[in-house]
């Protein structure tokens, strides 16, 4: 029994290392892009305080895209890839596709998401980047940022630095307000 116990515990500890290692490696080697953020601040019951992040690419009007996708409608729960062109100050949404291309496309980043709600040619999409955890003692700071942003979004821009892996997985690196990084 002892040998099996050691094996299971070792597997569990290795899982932790693998989990952290995978994310760290992806952040280090992924394609960095910046996304424009619309922050909201609820309280999570299970995982402490976090900023609920909404992006300008979270709600997509397919007909207004520079490269509109095929006419077959997207369904709720369907996996898709937002096609982004990395630009300054933030990446621009070019199109939406169901499949990842076999090879890299120059000047294009494919960010994986799930259609939460599909209404004809309008989609609400979740990318797994919707939570930025903040310490409880910094909540006032975040509230001040949100208030300023809500009153004057043009002069209080909030952007998220994201690393996107080759398979489209995105990982939040940091959130910046007027160029200043909120590091927690």
């Amino acid at each position, binding site marked *: *029994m*002892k040998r*099996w*116990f050691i094996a*299971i*515990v070792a*597997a*569990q*500890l290795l*899982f*932790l*290392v693998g*989990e*952290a290692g995978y*994310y*760290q490696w992806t*952040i280090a080697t992924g394609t960095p892009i910046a996304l424009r953020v619309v922050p909201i601040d609820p309280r999570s019951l*299970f*995982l*402490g305080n976090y900023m609920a992040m909404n992006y300008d690419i979270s709600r997509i009007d397919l007909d207004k895209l520079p490269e509109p996708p095929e006419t077959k409608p997207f369904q*709720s*729960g369907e996996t898709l890839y937002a096609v982004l062109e990395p630009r300054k100050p933030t990446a621009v949404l070019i199109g939406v596709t169901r499949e990842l291309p076999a090879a890299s496309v120059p000047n294009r980043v494919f960010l994986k998401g*799930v259609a939460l709600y599909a209404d004809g040619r309008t989609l609400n999409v*979740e990318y*797994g*980047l*919707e*939570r*930025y*955890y903040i*310490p409880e003692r910094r909540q006032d700071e975040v509230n001040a940022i949100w208030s300023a942003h809500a009153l004057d979004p043009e002069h209080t821009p909030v952007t998220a630095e994201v690393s996107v892996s080759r398979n489209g*997985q995105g*990982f*939040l690196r940091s959130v910046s307000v007027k160029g200043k990084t909120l590091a*927690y």
Partner: protein
Amino acid sequence: MESNEDNRAADPGLPPEHGEWLRREVGEWTREALIQKDQAGWILARYGLMETETPRSLKRVPMIRIIAALGAVLVGIGVLLVMGANWEEIPRFGRLVLLMFATGGCYFTGYALAHGRGKQPAVGTALLLLGSMIWGVSILLIFQMYYVAGEDGENAALPITFCGVLPLAYLLRSPLHLALSVVLGAGWLLFVVSSAPNWSGTQVSMLLLAVGCLLYLLGMLHRGRTSESAFASIYAGFGLAFVMCVLYALTFVGIHDRGETRHSLPAILLAVSAAGALFAAFARVAKTDRASAWEARALAVLSVVGFVLLYAPAKWATGDAFAWKLTMNLLLFGTELGMIGLGWKRLQPGLVNVGLAVFFVHLMTRYFDLLSGMLPQGLGLIGAGLLMLFSGIWLERQRKNLLRSMKGV
């Protein structure tokens, strides 16, 4: 630790040649789950055959040891608070090392205490459980560290932790780990169902009923295995809780709606449950006793009824349908009677008590459902109070009679 002489002082004396016999017998009793491992140690310690703490010796623990233990606990809590307060200041690598150290430390210390030479099995088991919980929380904290959310983040933590804890439950023969696994699995199921689109109320109800039936079936199948007999109660208990909650909820108008049956999972699970219960009814379990055979048949019937309800015609299954309400109430009532009968037959007062308690809640619920609209509010409350009073007295009398008759069997 108490010496052999201290233990032997409590007993007039055991002939040495009987020591081997006692060791052998105690080993058999432990294997047959007649006694726990720590009780085995106490029995042997009483006759000077093992050095271990006994309940008597623990009462004589010097105050200094208690103070030292409390001091250690305070230090531990302090360390956790310091870590928590400075968590954001610690680099990610440092946090990972701390989490691994906490997990591994609890596991290996717990194992040494629980499965070493009869030292502190209760503390060891608790540490092992703590290690598993810390591991699950570590997975979540790493997701949080890297801001991973959604189905690749915390949604994945429950099933991953479940997969890690369940093998430990069987390896360590730990009922606590099994209970944790069942809670994690149930939580994952409820989360998936609540967040998935297009599940009608009926499909969700039947899925939960199927899970309850399968858990109960697992309990029945574990009953005959001496090394895992404690698991039987855990599986059966959770299964019964699922079944009772679902049946109770289905007796209310509006819980169920037909919708379009798009998901085959509830039907598949109910079919598996029915097949498994029938197998148990006519195979190994039936050879144990007749009550077990009837229990398995009842489980099969419940699974089949659930399967039929899943595909019942829309007209019959709408919230107002008298046939639906009658069927659900009869099913719940039958399950309550079954619990009470089984508890009486198996001499398990706990099962009898739970069956009677659920019956009482069911009775009061139907009273308010049926009569509260017909009587003026004040009269309705008076009636409810009197009904509770007299039915409570009657039920308590029946419960005592049942338990008395069980003792006489």
